[in-house]
């Protein structure tokens, strides 16, 4: 008997399509439930792949009606230009209402004090801007694209996560969450975070993107960029990253696995220029996306937990 011919990997080779169907139904159901029970929800949109998938799902959830809530970008001011172009184009094409909460304005108004120095990041400051914006607009529920597989503190998070009047998360007092019966009851001034992608992995996200042809910023795909290597991470030169003494910028073929504050989001060396390549690369990855690309999370074991307690995404 002859051997079957080798096939090029299709995205179904990585995860069973039924698994993705189940995750899709689950996410849509969560989005509908929270949007219907809460008075004034908002979807947090960073321009990254997870929020693109979340927004795509949210539109499917209410089709053929329009998305019944706005999206909000917490803008650190440390952006990749491609991501801002993408954001503006997407909200126009998809006809959704965009609210921008600006970290720069929080700094200018004295709500937060910016760290100084070449390694200052605005990541942590975002929590204040986010909480202020939620209060200002009276949003009582915020959809986030957080996934439990991203980090061990996130692995502890409920699908519907309660925040007190100060916006704090208390991981020791989380509400039980039996079955799929979500409890969205809150008092005035409190709010909820809803994580419809809780049970998705990085590979599931790419699978969904490939299946539904979800538009993404170009920086997720391989390109040549001037970077500097710092603590094993490739940081883009030309934006908020200030060169330190002795650092030599160089051109490298890279792409991004996550999109965050440009001052602390690293690129990976990669020639993956198509979704097929990225799926193959993701399936074979040996390092978590945060470990590979987020300087802020490698500082300490509890970095994410500490930020989340303060109100972070």
């Amino acid at each position, binding site marked *: 008997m002859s051997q079957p011919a080798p096939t090029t990997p299709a995205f179904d080779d990585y995860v069973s399509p039924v698994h993705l169907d189940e995750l899709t139904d689950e996410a849509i159901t969560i989005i509908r439930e929270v949007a219907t029970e809460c008075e004034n929800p908002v979807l947090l949109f960073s321009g990254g792949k997870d929020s693109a998938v979340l927004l795509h799902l949210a539109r499917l959830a209410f089709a*053929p009606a329009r998305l019944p809530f706005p999206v909000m970008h917490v803008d650190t001011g440390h952006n990749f230009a491609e991501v801002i172009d993408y954001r503006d184009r997407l909200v126009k094409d998809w006809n959704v209402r965009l609210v921008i909460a600006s970290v720069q304005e929080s700094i200018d108004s004295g709500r937060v004090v910016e760290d100084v120095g070449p390694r200052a990041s605005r990541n942590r400051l975002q929590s204040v801007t986010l909480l202020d914006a939620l209060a200002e607009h009276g949003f009582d529920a915020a959809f986030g694209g957080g996934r439990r597989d991203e980090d061990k503190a996130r692995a502890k998070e409920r699908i519907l996560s309660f925040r007190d009047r100060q916006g704090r998360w208390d991981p020791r007092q989380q509400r039980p969450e039996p079955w799929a019966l979500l409890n969205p009851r809150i008092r005035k001034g409190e709010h909820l975070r809803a994580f419809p992608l809780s049970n998705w992995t990085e590979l599931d996200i790419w699978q969904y993107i490939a299946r539904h*042809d979800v538009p993404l910023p*170009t920086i997720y795909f391989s390109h040549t960029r001037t970077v500097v290597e710092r603590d094993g991470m490739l940081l883009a030169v030309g934006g908020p990253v200030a060169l330190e003494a002795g650092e030599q910028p160089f051109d490298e073929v890279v792409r991004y696995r996550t999109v965050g504050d440009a001052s602390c989001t690293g690129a990976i060396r990669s020639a993956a220029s198509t979704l097929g390549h990225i799926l193959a690369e993701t399936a074979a990855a*040996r390092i978590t996306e945060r470990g590979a690309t987020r300087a802020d999370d490698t500082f300490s074991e509890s970095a994410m937990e500490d930020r989340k307690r303060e109100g972070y995404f």
Partner: protein
Amino acid sequence: MDSSMVGTDLRSASVAPSEPDTAVRTTLRIATAGSVDDGKSTLIGRLLHDTKTVFEDQLKAVEKASRRYGDGETNLALLTDGLRAEREQGITIDVAHRYFTTPLRSFIVADTPGHAQYTRNMVTGASTSDIAIVLVDARHGVVDQTRRHSLIATMLGVEAIVVAVNKMDLVGWDQAEYERISKEVHAFVDGLPHPVPVFSIPMSALLGDNVVATSTNTPWYDGPPLLTFLEQFDASVESLPGARVHVQRVIRPQGGDHADFRGYAGVVAAGTLTIGEPITVLPSGRTTKVSGLHRWGQPVADAGAGHAVVVELADDVDVARGDVLVAGDATHPPEVAEDIVIDVCWMIDQPLLVGTRHWFKHGTRTGHATVTAIEHRYDLVSLEHEPTDELVLNDIGRVHLRLSEPIVADLYRHHAEGGRLILIDAASNTTAGAAMIAAISAWSPEI
């Protein structure tokens, strides 16, 4: 195309859900259970590690932390203890979810806490799981937590229990010991109110024996290692007839091409829904037919259990959130009820007392529930019914409720989705009880 965008517009994409294929196994949701230190976190760490799901940076972080906390070997339990307090105290406080995939299947694992104090977090993990792995330390045998967790897991709806008789390396791989423990759990589960099949496996989570690969230390055990068992476990519940949809939301586009569209969004619980199918809207009792079905924004001819759909109806009947669309062919049709008897896991510090009023949520219906009687509490170890006038934190008991709004109720044993509800504390808004409907008339309780 704009150079900052890759991909195409949503409107042009037409992606149909996958056709169910028996060769493709559905995701398996697993909860680990058992007493503190029986090895739950170690087992999950082992599964993640041996299926190559642990990334290098995670492993490095765990190695570093193991040294800091003074563990000799790399402590794989640190992979799942995600909170600072957990790592410092060396215990699991809240459930952590982890994910791994093998060429055969995707898995979602809920690592639940072993301490009795945190039973409510165990409820969260077990309630969404298909299967519970109950760990037993071979040196100590069956303990109270083994029984308590087996009871809760079966009550909340797992389809099977795997008894992992762990730390076999510490009892010299003694077959007699393994069989004694295994028989004891089998006998206990058989006597539970909701018995399920039980499978047992002798194991060393620490050394990896019978976790992913068959152990050479247990030649007397001829079953599969744990992972093989999980890959092959058939979690597809026999599909009940009688599709239902608890209406989440009315979809009514304002203007545009779809100005006349009116659809009802919800999840199909059990059965299959097809276009043309006769439907009863409950509680009103109006009858009509399915005239259109959509999943993920696209028309479909039918929809099965778990599918998130929008249903169009042939007649202009009054349907609102909280109503239930019921197909006609149910073996046990649901009943509209205001008085129900429940088995409830109580999960807050304030006791449940006769006369107290809580919010309830059943399907997509919410209202007030007043406790009219408390029949008994289960002794979680002996399973005896003890008369009581209150349920306290982590108690499970049988309680009568009067609801402010009628619900479309099923007995939990007939139809899990229609037979469960949560109770919400009116003062704090926290989720206080996980309840399963045991009887529908308050005055004819069944045992």
